[in-house]
């Protein structure tokens, strides 16, 4: 298994005076087999680091290393290593092609990963069998292979997205806000699935979320980002109980908690 290292990663968008510094010199390590949560508000750069790791955005400088091998090179070696890193996206309504059946979507990923790893692409029947296997892995009935995404609920779609990513047999899985587009009642099932899959398959994971409670439930370590900077990194309990950085503290305080008033309420009963 594999550890993922971000080393002095810098990502700028645009050029000249209008440059947006999305990620400013971020370094941390996702230890092998563990889950690191990335917490931060919108615009903190938390999704960008994941998108760079899978090659959807370009780093301005710095490195992302998978067991010491660079993920950022555009040559064949870089692509080979990148293949081991897969990503699940936030919006399950946009991450599946509405014109392809669930089975085809998963099979496409299988094909691609066989071709990329220079292995012989197995027969259609074998691909089908593997697709079925992946579906049952994420707790979906094999009959779903013939369905189009529109028949599936958000939670089911997110399961399919997980199955598709796992088809590439990744050693690192990047989960970008995978429950934030889902209903609260469905969120739990996807989190359970994620934890089950990780304990069974043992992949290393980066779990991006703005939800502290979700990060606490799923992750071992947490990295807190604020406006492109990594402001705090450490074991999840340590950070959430004794935050050192003011922006981590603000983040924790802002989360409404059951049974506690949101803030000192304005003085009631002075209606005009």
């Amino acid at each position, binding site marked *: 298994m594999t550890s993922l290292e971000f080393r002095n990663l810098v990502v700028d968008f645009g050029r000249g005076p209008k440059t947006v510094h999305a990620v400013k010199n971020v370094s941390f390590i996702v230890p092998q087999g563990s889950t690191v949560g990335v917490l931060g*508000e919108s615009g903190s750069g938390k999704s960008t680091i994941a998108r760079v790791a899978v*090659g959807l955005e370009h780093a301005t400088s710095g490195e992302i290393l998978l067991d010491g091998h660079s993920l950022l090179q555009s040559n064949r070696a870089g692509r080979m290593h990148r293949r081991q890193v897969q990503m699940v996206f936030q919006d399950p309504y946009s*991450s*599946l092609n509405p014109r392809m059946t669930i089975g085809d979507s998963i099979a496409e990923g299988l094909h691609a990963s066989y071709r990329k790893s220079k292995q012989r692409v197995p027969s259609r029947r074998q691909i089908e069998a593997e697709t079925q296997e992946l579906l049952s892995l994420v707790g979906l009935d094999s009959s779903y292979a013939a369905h189009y995404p529109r028949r599936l609920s958000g939670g089911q779609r997110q399961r399919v997205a997980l199955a598709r990513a796992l088809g590439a047999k990744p050693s690192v899985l990047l989960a970008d806000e995978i429950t934030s587009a889902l*209903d609260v009642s469905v969120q739990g099932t996807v989190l359970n699935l994620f934890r089950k899959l990780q304990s069974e398959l043992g992949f290393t994971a980066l779990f991006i979320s703005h939800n502290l*409670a979700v990060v606490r439930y799923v992750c071992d370590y947490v990295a807190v980002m604020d406006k492109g900077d990594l402001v705090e990194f450490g074991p999840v309990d340590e950070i959430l109980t004794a935050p050192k950085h003011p922006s981590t503290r603000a983040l924790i305080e802002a989360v409404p908690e*059951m049974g506690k008033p949101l803030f000192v309420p304005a003085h009631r009963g002075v209606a005009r």
Partner: protein
Amino acid sequence: MTILTTVAPATRRIRSFVHQMRTPAGAIAAIGTVLLVGLAIFAPVLWGAEAAEVNVDVIARGPSAEHLLGTDSAGRDILLRTLVAARTSLMYGMLATLIGVTLGVIVGCLPSILPPWIGRLVTAVVNMLVAFPALLLILFLAVFFGQGATGAVFALGLAIVPNIARLCQTMTASVVGRDFVSAAKVLGVPRTAILFRHIIPSIADVIVVNATMAAASSLTAMAGLSFLGIGLQAPAYDWGRLLSEGLARMYVSPAAALTPAIAVTLAGIVLTMLGDTIGRAVGVTPVISMRKLAGLPTRSAKPEPDRGEAPHPEAVLSVRDLHVSFPALGKWVTPVRGVSFDIARGERVGIVGESGSGKSLTALAVAQLIEYPGRVEADAIVFDGVDYAGMSEREVTSHAADLGLKMSMVFQDPMSSLNPSLRVGPQVAETALLHGGGIRTQASNQATDRLAEVGIQNPKMRARQYPFQFSGGMRQRAMIAMGLMGTPKLIIADEPTTALDATVQRTVMQVLDRVAVEHGSAVMFISHDIALVTGFCERVLVMYHGEIVEDISSADLVEGSAVHPYTKALMASIPTLTTDRSRPMATVADFMKEDKA
């Protein structure tokens, strides 16, 4: 309110086509196309020889029994010649379209396969060509290729390329931005496979519709080129040539010129209608159905009179047996079924539930904002002493000022609820101008005051800015300020902080809290975040499948004294900062199973 269907897209599409063929426009387009194609195939076979027959005895005659529409300068029958010319006219028009669309799609899709810098170059060239007038381009190319059908067809085809290419580029760009393309890239699907499997199928509908429209225009343009003498050359003829031959005798025998002219016009109209029909069938062109749905949504027969109590006289809002229905695929679906509740003056009531549980529709129905074809039925929707249930649209409009000043709404997405092209100040002031009959300067001063009240710094300057210059939290506060232009008795907030960060959410909630207290407004607060709702509201309504399944005080809910299994499940399935990590999360399914068992 998504309606799940079990059919594959292809089957759905065929059904949609059949449905469109039954509309008058669709039927005319279909019949016209069949006639046109039939003519192009069979007319030359049937009448080709006859139409070419020179008869010196009947040169340039008017209409007669033998030659219905007269003869031309060589004594040939004009009607037959027009019919026979359908093949050449249609064929060259289609050929030009085929060339144009094929090249256009290739050029338009190239940037997504090529290295970025070449892609940008191609895009720039296409953009420049789009700006070039098509007619000039056609004439230039026609001269360049020289006289004759081949030259004209290529000229026409190439002239179509920029528009189709541009269309492809914009469509492709929007598809490439979607996550399923990103997912395919991450999996390592080759770029060409992404193009053919993901991008082209997604844009094909629009391309087909536009190609049909392009066919109509290149058919007429081809006739135009022949008319000018740079298209088909004698002895070959199409409608354009017939027109130019007939024009000389326009005043002697108008049929000679009018017949081919009418043929060109009709063919153009048929093709345009065909494009329109395809567009409607595949969902590119919006469908405005004039058909009335049979039957109205039926509220379940109520066992009078014990169903629910009378509207509460003291409440600011009293709703009884509210139903909201929408037509879908020829049937009525009713996402809100029999909702009854009261909100006391100054009370804060939260509504929680899944997406699709009907919580937003309930709010919209209360605010009289359900639009046609949606239907609202209720025994009572009493707001501030006025019962809006069963009111006609006109009656509601006569109360608009009341609603506008006494009820205010804050929606989830502040970017789409503010008009992006108007300054914020006037938008906030609009309520007062519209309903309060205020004077402009007074209203705008009041708007500035209200912006200050919701904590917007430097409100005078901010009032002159546009929504895009505001952050998400500021926009949401501006929406609250808009509601404060009257004296709101009820503020309806539909997921007002869902799109915002937690820290921003806090400031918006603080503002909402303060203004509600200061103005004595009741708040109907819709959210999926139970912790937020219990922290802000005194009472919580839980909605499930269009019904209120639990009406409970926040304190009781937090203590865990909820009764309905769905509420219990909801409470248990939310991860908190004290959730036991050694155990899997409870899910709603677990609880609902217990309920059934």
